[in-house]
């Protein structure tokens, strides 16, 4: 697109803004966009509903490009329990014998501790993202851990959930600490090979 083709519409818009008819036309265009945009914002807020599915072809391309593809579900439907990834990196030879002591790590690094640091918060959100996609762990997390641990041959992943004791339980057993009332559950528990490139 040359310079001329950019400038022309701008000059035309300025002219339209000065004439009554032109302004009416621009406002009419803006009104159509406002109605469409509000429709997108309302429907995409509950995008998985029938409405969302029915109008998917008309609204999702616009919503996804503009970032209005979010459902507003802060701490809902229920607040999450404490969760993190525990991984064990193995270094083995061709026969499968360990050549180096395995290494344990956590993601996020802070494990189950809260932080004000937005950077470390991003790790927490990244962990949730990894867990929500079936192949994200294998495609993203494992290759990264293998890359940063030179010589690693496999990675074992445990997804840990430390459940928060319900309020009723916490009130009934006041003499017990929250750590004592909490239950640790392991999910995934899978070993992934490091692919040598």
């Amino acid at each position, binding site marked *: 697109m040359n310079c001329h083709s950019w400038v022309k519409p701008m000059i035309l818009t300025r002219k339209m803004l000065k004439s009554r008819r032109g302004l009416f036309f621009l*406002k009419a265009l803006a009104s159509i966009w406002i109605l469409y945009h509000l429709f997108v914002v309302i429907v995409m807020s509950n995008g998985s509903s029938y409405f969302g599915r029915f109008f998917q072809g008309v609204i999702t391309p616009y919503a996804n490009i503009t970032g209005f593809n979010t459902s507003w579900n802060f701490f809902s439907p229920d607040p999450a329990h404490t969760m993190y990834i525990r991984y064990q990196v193995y270094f083995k030879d061709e026969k499968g014998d360990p050549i180096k002591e395995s290494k344990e790590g956590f993601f996020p690094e802070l494990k189950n501790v*809260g932080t*004000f640091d937005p950077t470390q918060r991003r790790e927490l959100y990244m962990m949730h*993202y990894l867990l929500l996609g079936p192949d*994200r762990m294998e495609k993203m997390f494992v290759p990264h851990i293998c890359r940063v641990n030179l010589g690693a041959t496999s990675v074992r992943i445990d997804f840990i959930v430390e459940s928060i004791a319900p309020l009723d339980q916490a009130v009934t057993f006041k003499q017990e600490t*929250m750590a004592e009332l909490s239950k640790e559950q392991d999910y995934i528990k899978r070993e992934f090979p490091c692919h040598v490139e």
Partner: protein
Amino acid sequence: MLSKALKAWDHFWFSPKKLINLALMRIFLTGTMLHLYFLRSWNIIYFTDGWLMPRSLALETMDEFTRPLWGWYFWPDSMMGGVHSIYVFTLLLLFLGIGGRALTALAWVLHMGFMYRNYGAVFGADVIGGVFLFYLAFSDSCARLSIFNFFKRKKPLRMESDWLSSAMMRMIQFQICIIYAYTGFEKLKGISWWDGTALWSVLANPQMVNMDWTFLRHLPLAIAIGSFLSIIFEIYFPAAMLNPKGRKYWLITGLFFHGSIGLFMGLMHFSLIMLSTYFLFLEPELLEGVITRLKRKVFL
């Protein structure tokens, strides 16, 4: 009848509004984002192949329903640091009231580029920051409270918005109401919110708070009241904004609500971005009065 309806529509969306509200929102929004993304300068690796999200998978790993046609990150990963610096600089300029729609649009594109380069590392503040920056890109938010206004101007200061800025102010009002209402509705789907114990799950979760709140098990009623008040506040926010009398009480409640989230849960950026929209619900005369008093205090 049709003529009346069109006039009402035109008045509601496009009639001039005081720019002071929009300018204050711009300062709070871009100021908060400036701080948040300045801190991100030390973690640019998150948006390169050096971390968890390879460029080739950035869009592929997103859910199909929310996957965009393009990711806005038109620049190579090797330029991430430079582009991020430009982004932070544009936020600084907007904070100072320098620039207009084009610069805000540029800031929005860069913002979206970083978001989609690693959607996994995105949190609430990024999403709502992008949403409100989008609306600002269509508005003339730098016309008031700009650093340029300190210098002698040939043209008189513009106090009222043009028709497009007016429409954007309405859109932001709608948007924040939709965010609150849906957040409340989503909570109603949760057993613990319906049960009145959800706040406990938040405050007793060490990953979500910065201090030990478990002493609240000695005050369980406070948990239940807090849980239900959160839902009521969110669901009825749109209705309260329609009522000029109830509005101020709701906004004051919102100030405490977000203040608590920011202080106790470490989500200060998120809270400030949400609060920045409150300026659009306040009387412009009140804001002008505060600004005038502030000016007097600073310059005398």
